[in-house]
C-alpha cells in the first residue's frame, strides 16, 4: 500500500523559533510537492522537488528531498504568525499503475505560530 506520512500532524510554535516537518513516503517517485492551505481555502503550491538532494528556499521556508531515504523535510526558520496554516506534502506516483501525475497526499501538518 502506498503511504505518505507526515509528522507532526499538529505543531504549535512560538514566533522566532525553528522547526522541521517531515514527510516519509513508501514508493519511488520523481517528484514531491509541498502545498500550503489556509482555513477554508484551496491549496497553494510552495515547492516542487525533482531530484535527490534538491533544496529549495522561499522566505522562511526551506524544503529538501532525499529520494534514497524517501524523505522530504520542510524547515521553518524564525517562524512568524503569517505562516500559520496546514502544510501538505504530496508524492507524484507518475508511473504507478499507468496513471501519470497521480498525487498521494500526506495527512497534513497544522501549524500554529503564536506570539
Amino acid at each position: 500500500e502506498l503511504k505518505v506520512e507526515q509528522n507532526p500532524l499538529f505543531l504549535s510554535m512560538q514566533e522566532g523559533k525553528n522547526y522541521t516537518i517531515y514527510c516519509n513516503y513508501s514508493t519511488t517517485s520523481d517528484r514531491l510537492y509541498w502545498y500550503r492551505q489556509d482555513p477554508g481555502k484551496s491549496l497553494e503550491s510552495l515547492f516542487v522537488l525533482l531530484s535527490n538532494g534538491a533544496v529549495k528556499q522561499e522566505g522562511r521556508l526551506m524544503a529538501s528531498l532525499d529520494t534514497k531515504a524517501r524523505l522530504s523535510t520542510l524547515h521553518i526558520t524564525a517562524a512568524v504568525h503569517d505562516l500559520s496554516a496546514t502544510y501538505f506534502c504530496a508524492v507524484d506516483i507518475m508511473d504507478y499503475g499507468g496513471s501519470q501525475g497521480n498525487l498521494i497526499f500526506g495527512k497534513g501538518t497544522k501549524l500554529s505560530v503564536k506570539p
Partner: protein
Amino acid sequence: DAMVIQNPRYQVTQFGKPVTLSCSQTLNHNVMYWYQQKSSQAPKLLFHYYDKDFNNEADTPDNFQSRRPNTSFCFLDIRSPGLGDAAMYLCATSPLLRHNTDTQYFGPGTRLTVL
C-alpha cells in the same frame, strides 16, 4: 491571468438531490482532476482526465460521475448526495508533459453542504 475557476464556491443541496459542480481553466492543460477533501483531512483523488480519457479511482463511489465536454471545462456530478458527501471539492489541472516547475494547479474549491 491564467487560472482554474470553480463554480459555485458554496453549494447547498438536499439529501438525495443531484448536484453538479463545475470547473474551468484557462491554462490549456491536458489533465484535469477532481479531489474531495473532508474537514481536517488530506485531499483524496476521485478521478482525472487525460484529455478525454477518463480515469476513475478504484474506491470512488458510483454516486460520483464526471464529464469533460472540452479542454476547458470539467464537471462533477453527484447523483444522490448523502450526508457523508459534504466536503470541499477541489479541481486541479496540470500539463501532460510537465516542466520542472509544473505542479498541479488548484482551483479555489466548492464547499458542498448536504442537508
